[in-house]
């Protein structure tokens, strides 16, 4: 399937302006809640610095910490699996399912399984996986991807949810009462939890010194699944590791405040060993992370703790919606992670930004997101993933701007933007500027001309 570029998809999204305004305001509200929560902590900036340093240290010693984690987890009675890529991850999960002859699976939110396409893979094998996070269940019914990593159905209004539940759960048509709809989802999911033979969860933090891991949810659905089902599989990208349990004191304080403005998620569930008669598996996944770790300019993108603060603050994300990024992890962080996974398919993403820098400022682990967007642009152009037209235009511009006399000549000839920046013609078809904006009025004299006439000795 040929995917639309971000610009094209965003333009479609914006065509419904009231809905765009609603989307923008909803996410800005979350950003404002984050500000308020951060202001409530005197040492906020110090916490960010510590979190950043802990993650940097961990990324530099990842091999040791991963081995330590594996040893400790095994000693706790957990089975540890290693997956080089998404396909291996999916195969490992499938093998566990088949070996135990499982029919029904529940899954709490895991962006890693989205990244690996697990649901689709299992569907093809005839196994149905039920997403138990409310937002994820909604988008799963609709056969959509999450549009946000923390708020998967944030692109939908309650009317959309009502319609979806009417179709899939038989709720009353046109009943948009959130309480009614949530209750319907609750009853529906309750039966899925009871029937499930296996529960899949993500991992927020994996602790090297204990071999345990922490899963953060607001709905308690990870716990419901993992405690009820005889088998628990936790899937994690290898960057989820932190050295010590005490480091949770830094990360748990930052995560929920950055994500939604809550002091802490409703559930911070600590898992360490399987219950009596239960199995616990951890799948540790690379899927391009080693490659990213080897890219000097981009390695620290692996510090990400998936809070989505950069989504909520991004003026472009708020006005284009997560689906316009055509990837599992969208938003600013997705735009610096995804070119590593597939540079050609995601060549548009680093350009879906004004480089305003707000993302880097809200990031709780201080990833220099906007700087990396700039650097990815350079890589993408040097690798040739750019249109011929743009390349010719840029070469022409660079030539003119390196020759002062030619620059002045072009300037004088056309008062000169037209020749310097060919997109600035007054036709809406050829000139995107002119579609919704007037051109600047060309003055008779440039500043240089004025200076020559009035000032030059």
């Amino acid at each position, binding site marked *: 399937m040929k995917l639309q570029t971000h610009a094209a998809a*965003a333009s479609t999204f914006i065509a419904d302006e009231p809905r765009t305004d609603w989307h923008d305001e909803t996410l800005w509200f979350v950003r404002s809640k984050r*500000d308020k929560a951060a202001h409530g902590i005197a040492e906020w900036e110090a916490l960010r610095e510590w979190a950043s340093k802990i993650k940097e240290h961990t990324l530099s010693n990842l091999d040791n910490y991963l081995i330590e984690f594996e040893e400790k987890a095994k000693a706790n009675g957990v089975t540890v699996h290693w997956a080089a890529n998404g396909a291996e991850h999916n195969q490992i999960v499938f093998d566990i399912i088949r070996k135990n002859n499982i029919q029904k699976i529940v899954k709490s939110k895991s962006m890693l399984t989205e990244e690996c396409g697990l649901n689709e893979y299992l569907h093809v094998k005839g196994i149905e996986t039920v997403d138990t996070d409310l937002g994820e269940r909604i988008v799963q019914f609709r056969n959509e991807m999450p549009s946000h990593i923390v708020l998967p159905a944030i692109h939908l209004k309650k009317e959309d949810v009502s319609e979806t539940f009417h179709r899939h759960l038989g709720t009353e048509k046109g009943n948009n009462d959130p309480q009614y709809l949530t209750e319907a989802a609750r009853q529906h999911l309750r039966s899925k939890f009871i029937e499930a033979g296996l529960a899949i969860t993500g991992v927020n933090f994996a602790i090297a010194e204990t071999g345990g891991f922490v899963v953060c949810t607001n709905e308690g659905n990870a716990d419901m699944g993992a405690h009820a089902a005889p088998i628990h599989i936790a899937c994690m990208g290898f960057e989820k590791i932190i050295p010590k349990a005490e480091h949770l004191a830094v990360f748990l304080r930052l995560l929920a405040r950055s994500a939604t403005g809550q002091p802490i998620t409703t559930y911070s569930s600590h898992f360490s060993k399987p219950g009596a008669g239960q199995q616990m598996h951890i799948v540790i996944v690379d899927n391009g992370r080693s490659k990213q770790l080897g890219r000097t300019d981009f390695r620290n993108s692996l510090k990400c703790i998936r809070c989505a603060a950069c989504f909520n603050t991004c003026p472009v994300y708020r006005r284009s919606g997560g689906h316009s990024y055509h990837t599992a992890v969208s938003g600013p962080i997705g735009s610096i992670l995804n070119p590593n996974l597939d540079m050609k398919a995601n060549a548009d993403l680093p*350009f879906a930004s004004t*480089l305003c820098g*707000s993302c880097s400022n809200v990031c709780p682990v201080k990833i220099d997101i906007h700087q990396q967007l700039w650097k990815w642009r350079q890589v993408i152009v040097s690798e040739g993933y750019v249109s011929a037209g743009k390349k010719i235009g840029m070469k022409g511009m660079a030539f003119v701007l390196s020759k002062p006399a030619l620059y002045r000549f072009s300037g004088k000839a056309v008062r000169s933007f037209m020749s310097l920046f060919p997109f600035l013609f007054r036709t809406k078809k050829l000139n995107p500027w002119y579609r*919704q*904006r007037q051109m600047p009025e060309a003055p008779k004299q440039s500043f240089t001309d004025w200076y020559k006439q009035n000032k030059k000795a």
Partner: protein
Amino acid sequence: MKVGLFIPCYIDQFYPQVGIATLQLLEKAGCEVSFPMNQTCCGQPMANSGFAALSKGCDQNFVDNFSGFEYIVAPSGSCVLHIKEHLHGADEEKVNYIRSHIYELTEFLVDVLQLENLEANFPHKVGLHISCHGQRGLHLSSMSELMEPAFSKPEKLLGMVKGLELTKPKRPDECCGFGGTFCVFEEAVSVKMGKDRIAEHAANDVAFITAADTSCLMHLEGILKRNNSTTKTIHIAEILNSSIA
């Protein structure tokens, strides 16, 4: 104090009045200002589009024009930030000197000249647009995302202008959506962002929107004019240089 005046290409060609105001303002403040005649551009349009590799000629031209000045000043946070972060050249000493001695106009007036008063008069209601590169890149003012004490160099200067009533939009430092070539390659988002900024200033009933970057203002002006708005855009240098008529 010998100052080399850098007037970014699009200001030179389209907004000469901004260059004139900057020059006059610096001279009033006692600077000896020169405008090197062979300057063109900082190279940002290429670099932000991923073509930094093509800006060598432009960079060299910048170094040739601006070496030897005590300070370099420009009425654009964005172009200054680009020079600070991305200027390259064969002569590293010259490049490093330029990188560390180039100033955006308002930071130069506040930090270097330590201006405490101005002979300026602008009896209008003015909305301040905070340009991202000046703010988050050069730290001209505190940022809403960070937990830091509030300050603003542009606001400090506007506070010295007689008659000026300053207002701020509801979201104090959201991007206007210009973003260099973003404004054409992501036209829909760019314009929507600009419209939303304008709506917040319009809610304050301002006569003018000002900023320390002409690029943001050019974008906002284009939208205002298309919609036949009576609100005008004006660079901060023009306000600070305005005198009693």
